[in-house]
Every structure is written in structure tokens, then in C-alpha cells.
């Protein structure tokens, strides 16, 4: 299982709705709207990096109101 934090910037005023929509997606463990340089932070997990990439591309980035994502895989050193 691989995990990642996805940092998301949204259109003005859309953070809460984006977080709520993303929280319902399979593979999303948590989605919160936050203050700071990013508007929503998501923790996601999948069976492989390929699956995680598809989750980001096909589903999370398809949510209305997202302008930018930055995906940071969790590493266990």
C-alpha cells in the first residue's frame, strides 16, 4: 500500500466544497480544507503508485474548482 499527501489549490471560495467532494472518493483517507499556501490537504492511499497516479489524474483532478495539485508520496526511511 502506498500513501501520499496531495496539496491542492482551489478557486476562491471553493475549498470547502472541494474537500467535501474529494473526501467521498475511494482511496481518500482524509480531506481537509486548511489555511496557508494550499487550500485543501488530502491523504490518499492505493495498492500501487500507478493506481495512486490514476486516482490523482482521473478522479481528484476531475473535481470542479481545483486549480493545482502537488502530490507528495509518503516515504518510510
Amino acid at each position: 500500500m502506498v500513501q501520499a499527501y496531495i496539496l491542492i489549490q482551489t478557486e476562491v471560495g471553493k475549498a470547502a466544497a472541494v474537500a467535501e467532494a474529494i473526501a467521498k472518493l475511494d482511496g481518500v483517507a482524509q480531506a481537509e480544507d486548511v489555511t496557508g499556501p494550499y487550500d485543501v490537504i488530502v491523504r490518499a492511499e492505493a495498492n500501487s503508485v500507478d493506481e495512486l497516479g490514476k486516482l490523482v489524474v482521473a478522479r481528484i483532478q476531475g473535481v470542479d474548482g481545483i486549480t493545482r495539485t502537488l502530490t507528495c508520496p509518503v516515504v518510510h526511511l
Partner: protein
Amino acid sequence: MPRRPPVGLLGLLLVAGCTGGTPAPSDAVAVTPVNGLQPGVLLSCADLKGQLPAALADGVKKRPAVPESSTTVAYGTDPAIEVRCGVAEGLAADDPYTFDAVRWAMHDTGATRTWTTRGLKVDVQVVIPDHFDAQAELLGAMAPAITSALTR
């Protein structure tokens, strides 16, 4: 005695891709994915793919690439523009260009120009057939997404 389906029918089904998978969209373009990437690189490519614009210019629209991959995108009509993320950085020996703060190395093969970024966290290759005019503008249209997703 059990009946077996005709061998010819089985072959036809296989040729038609009737193996139970999702059929490729009719406007899909074959683009070779970049395989064997580190997780961070692959996920940066996923970020880029989602942020690339729906069109680079009038009539140069994004098309699905097959096989499905976070590393590939296509644009425009045949032969299409092919975008591959996660490649090696462009060669210093190729012609250097900078469009909208993104540095490119250009290699002209005659039928296509291959543009590869230099100095990014993850580099991108764009192969543009010569029938596309204003290639700098096409690359410039990608610059915001590239800068956003792939800058160190």
C-alpha cells in the same frame, strides 16, 4: 461431446480487443509511456497531466493517450503532438530555447521537432510534427502547468 467455438471466431474476438478490458476512446493516440519511474516522479507527472490545458491553440485539443498512463498526453490531429513526462533532461548539445521561463532543448529530426525541458524537478518531452505552426506558442501554453507541477 462438448461443442467448441470456431477457432476463427476466437481469433476475431482477440483481434477486436474483446478481452474484457475498457475499450480505448475512438480519438485515442498511441503514446509510449515512461516506465520504471520513482514514485515521486510519477506522481509529479500525474500532477502535470491534470494541469495541462484542454487545448494548446485553436483546434489543438487534448486527446487521450493509450495505453493509459500518468506520464503521457496527446494533442491535435494526426500525427498528434505527444507529451511524455519523466524523461531524461534535454541535451545541452541541442538548440536551447526558453519560452515563458521554461527552458527547452530542441532536436529537429526533419518530420518532427522534439522539445525536452532542462533543469526541472521532472523533465518533459514534447514531440511536435512539423505540420503544426507556431510551436513556441504551443509550448508556451503548457508553461503554466509545467512550472506549477515540475519546478524544483
